[in-house]
């Protein structure tokens, strides 16, 4: 992808920016320490390009995750100057004279340097049954289930989640209580709940103290989400669905509102 070093050559002699990177090497450090590097301040460089420069030219031992460099694989989330950001979509020039402080995403155990443990999320994702549930006869593989653009629109936004976990990192409830099911998993459950083709019911996993009811509507998840998924909205909507279903047991809540 980015041809970093050629750009560096061309820009020799340009300004630099101080980048402070959180380092945690298990066995060596008992807790993270900041290490500073000077990185060329190129107008086109994302924070991630700065990290790549450090890794390639200054210190090969720095560890972090990245892949697509186009904001869609969801692997490069980190805390940049205190804010959870996708580092491939955040530019060094936003931080002018620096320094830029890069730390791992808050709220997760740190495996090493900027790499955090996200297995907890994957377990939660599985638990909400994020797949299309059908009952009865399947259509043959010659026909699609009809779905109008309006029906698509009803869940589309929630299907845009790239699992970058910035929302978990921003949510104080999750940071305090890792049992909280959390914004993205609930948004993805709603992605299927609101899909006109889905016949499943996720009430049992969503209507729990540590699921939708754990959310106190801080709303930070929505503010930091790079893909405009609006998980806060997904959660509040399910609260209403679940509450109505609890007081009116005969109403099928989420399913009823689908069609």
């Amino acid at each position: 992808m980015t041809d970093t070093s050629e750009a560096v050559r061309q820009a020799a002699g340009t300004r630099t920016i101080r980048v402070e990177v959180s380092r945690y090497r298990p066995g060596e450090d008992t807790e993270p320490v900041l290490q500073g590097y000077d990185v060329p301040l190129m107008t086109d460089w994302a924070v991630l390009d700065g990290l790549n420069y450090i890794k390639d030219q200054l210190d090969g031992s720095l560890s972090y995750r990245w892949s697509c460099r186009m904001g869609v694989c969801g692997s490069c989330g980190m805390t940049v100057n205190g804010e959870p950001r996708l580092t491939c979509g955040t530019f060094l020039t936003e931080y002018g004279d620096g320094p830029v402080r890069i730390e791992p995403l808050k709220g997760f155990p740190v495996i090493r340097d900027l790499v955090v443990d996200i297995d907890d999320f994957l377990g939660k994702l599985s638990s909400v049954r994020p797949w299309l549930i059908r009952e009865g006869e399947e259509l043959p593989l010659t026909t699609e289930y009809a779905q109008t653009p309006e029906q698509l629109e009803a869940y589309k936004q929630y299907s845009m989640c790239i699992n970058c976990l910035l929302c978990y990192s921003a949510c104080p409830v999750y940071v305090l209580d890792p049992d909280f099911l959390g914004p993205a998993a609930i948004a993805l459950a709603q992605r299927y709940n609101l899909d006109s083709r889905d016949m499943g019911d996720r009430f049992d996993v969503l209507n729990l103290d540590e699921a939708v009811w754990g959310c106190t509507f801080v709303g930070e998840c929505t503010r930091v989400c790079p893909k405009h998924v609006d998980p806060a909205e997904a959660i509040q909507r399910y609260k209403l669905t679940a509450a109505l279903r609890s007081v009116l047991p005969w109403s099928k809540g989420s399913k009823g509102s689908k069609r």
Partner: protein
Amino acid sequence: MIDVLIVGGGGAGLRAAIAVAETDPSLKVAVVSKVYPMRSHTVSAEGGAAAVIGLGDTLDEHCYDTVSGGDWLCDQDAVEAFVAEAPEELIQLEHWGCPWSRESDGRVAVRPFGGMKKMRTWYAADKTGFHLLHTLFQTTLKYQDVIRYDEWYVTKLVVDDGRVHGVVAVEIRTGRIETIPARTVILATGGCGKVFPFTTNAAIKTGDGMALAYRAGAPLKDMEFVQYHPTGLPFTGILITEAARAEGGWLINKDGYRYLQDYDLGTPTPTPKLRSMELGPRDRLSQAFVHEQHKGRTVDTPYGPVVYLDLRHLGERKIDSRIPFVRELCRSYQNLDPATDLIPVRPVVHYMMGGVHTDIDGATPIAGLYAAGETACVSINGANRLGSNSLPEILVFGRRAGIAAAAFATSHREAEAAAVHSQGEDERRRLERAREGSRHGERIADLREQMQHTLEGAAGIYRTGDVLTKAVDTLADLRERAEEARVEDNSTTFNTELINLQELHTMLEVAQTIVACALNRQESRGAHQRTDYSARDDDAYLAHSLVHRAPDGTPSVGLLPVTITRWPPGERVYGRD
């Protein structure tokens, strides 16, 4: 003992896993992936997936477009199987919940695409690969018995006596090196764009599967065919999908002239015309760019010459409904708005037509070893892949490989081979030595960069014998130097430098085969254009390049006839009716 071990959690790997789980739930399936599956590069695919769904379209036409688009280097039996099964696969995805874009009556919508005579490209706005991969990934969560090895890096195939017995892999998080015995292995590791400096491909696309198979004795096929996509953003190489042109975008040079009309691609029309102008095949469009550059009609930028993609006449509404991601990418990475500004673009390395040689069930010549997806070469893409054929390819052949591997695993129930232990131990020692590190040698990044520029110079859009010959020596030299590369990180926890070093080795291996095949093919066909042999030569080269690794580690290239069923070689005609 794993029955089917799949290396790769992208579209091909996950499709294979589901196929195995559905074929025989008693089989033990595992997916090993160096990144979490939903991070795989399938996630970046934008434009769409082709499959015939009526509307006056026929399977034969899709076959013909594919075969002519591939400059008759496709195996036509494979193309026929592919085209016939693609519609079912895309409907299967629909049944699993993929949010395909729709017509107002609820049917799946299709759009035109480069080199296709009919509208048959299904799309999910311009995030098709993203939706496809997440649908597949979330669907695999339903099959709780599928074992996942997330963030494990496979370094070696255990092969003994012409039969695969498993893999050796490093758990990146802990540094644990483990041998995983398996009855069958499916390679679904994706492409190798990172061999080049300027590419749309993600960091993980380092050709690992190709190198694994090649080192284990399986041949690679058609490695000289590297696709340049005509519209990448300068500097980042981020792809501006072909869908932008399919929706009516124009390519213009520095004079605002739609230059494709000068290259036998038809005459400009205000609305897009199928198989014409901007909807010609990618190889021809990228070649036209080089000619424009030579004529001085491109615009110079700090990141090389560019032309412009003009979407302004489409209007904001259409851009937002059909290609919103294009707008998002331009805004965040290029600081411009396609509704009002021209988008600077230049050709960028995008896709590998070649790969591990397989039959139409994904089987390689090594018993029990299969390959599918971009890492494989079933030969449906020939000398040039048509846009939107790759996503259906990973599904069709991912499934086929899964079923074939399941059958093989069921009928071959031998116990663990002795080789598993001995080869596993050797590989462990090699990796541990590499991790001990060295403060001397050259930096991995510097070696990688030299390799990338060598490839760009020698195996770019146009190639020449002399330069290729020189590249052979440069690469051999780089390989030796890479053995001594500097490694500063000797931690066992999440040691990405160790992985980067392994990837450098695999890329060098792949780079050598690309150059060797390109040197051997003394003709011009599809994406392989030799300035010293500028014509297609069906008498000598209507054949695949098949490259084996010789005992001394150098590539040895031979030819394998192309399978022709119903479409004899003809002229590739675009823009003329």
